[in-house]
């Protein structure tokens, strides 16, 4: 019985992923690709992913951008607000390396890994919507599977 319930829970969870995204300082190219995921061509909701911008309701945080100093504490705040189980996915080159902003004299402090734990990253400048989708779809169920059981 417990097992069956657990299976149902896992299945439901993997089909109901709530995503919120935050841009901590980039060119907005990756934001546009995330928005393209919402549009009918890629239609993120057919995979059971719902995007809204309230960290308190989110399971997955998409982090975009190369972290400007003003964002450092705010990004941590947002991460704290997300209820467990949670996972952060870095979208684009910026959170990984700083990309084109990673030059002398720029006000960015990549990588984003220094501030919050990142479970997966999707490189690209910008990454394709398909890559973003498959990253969310592959990483989220892994983290959420048997979450409560693994905590014990």
């Amino acid at each position, binding site marked *: 019985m417990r097992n069956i319930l657990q299976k149902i829970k896992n299945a439901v969870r993997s089909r109901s992923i709530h995503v919120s995204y935050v841009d901590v300082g980039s060119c907005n190219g990756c934001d546009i690709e995330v928005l393209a995921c919402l549009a009918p061509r890629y239609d993120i909701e*057919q995979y059971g992913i719902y995007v809204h911008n309230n960290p308190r309701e989110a399971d997955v945080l998409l982090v975009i951008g190369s972290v400007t100093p003003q964002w450092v504490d705010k990004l941590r705040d947002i991460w704290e607000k997300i209820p467990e189980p949670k996972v952060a996915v870095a979208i684009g080159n910026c959170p990984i*390396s700083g990309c084109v902003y*990673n030059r002398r004299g720029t006000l960015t402090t990549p990588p984003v890994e220094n501030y919050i734990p990142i479970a997966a990253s999707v490189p690209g*400048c910008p990454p394709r919507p398909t890559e973003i*989708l498959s990253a969310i779809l592959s990483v989220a169920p892994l983290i959420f599977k048997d979450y409560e059981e693994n905590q014990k």
Partner: protein
Amino acid sequence: MRSIIYYVREFLRPEWLKTFFFARTAPLETPSYFKGYPARTEKECTRCLSCMMICPAPGAIAVLRKKDQWGPEIYPGHCIRCGLCVEACPEGVLSSGRILDVTRRDGTAFWSWYHLQVDDSLCMRCGNCCVSCPVNREIDPQLGATGTSSSDEVIMRIEGGRVTILHEEKCTGCKTCEINCPNRAIRVARMVEGVQGEEAEA
């Protein structure tokens, strides 16, 4: 009433029900012509570094030696998949999407040279640049200590109290002149231009 019946009938059509419940957008496939991260081909790298010099993203590409073979290495997370390195490589060592096919079809290529520029308001006519240039010294071993030369073949010489650039095209881009200029008056810049047709074949 008629319209209600119409709607009910419309929505009970098996076809409609099927699309309503089982609709799926196209599968998530990347078309083959999309530019991916540049991949190695079989060709041998000559270590000319054209790929590294044209790359716009910091830290995206490095030409490294593995055992006795040099070859470019692409770093995802830095590379922006612009494909410029694929186009710039004279040997066709890298490939991505259909870039190589298109450049072959259209006969396009990158043409690069070094541009020398002296800021006359900073230059104090010392001639260090002309004297230190290894190409200059090769061409005219009798080069004057002040940068004067009787040869018309040198890259640059002091002429009439100022630096005159004669043969920019001979510059190898070593930047020795830049390093030896006490005033940072001379600048060497690598210029790249896209060319097509006969020019590209040359």
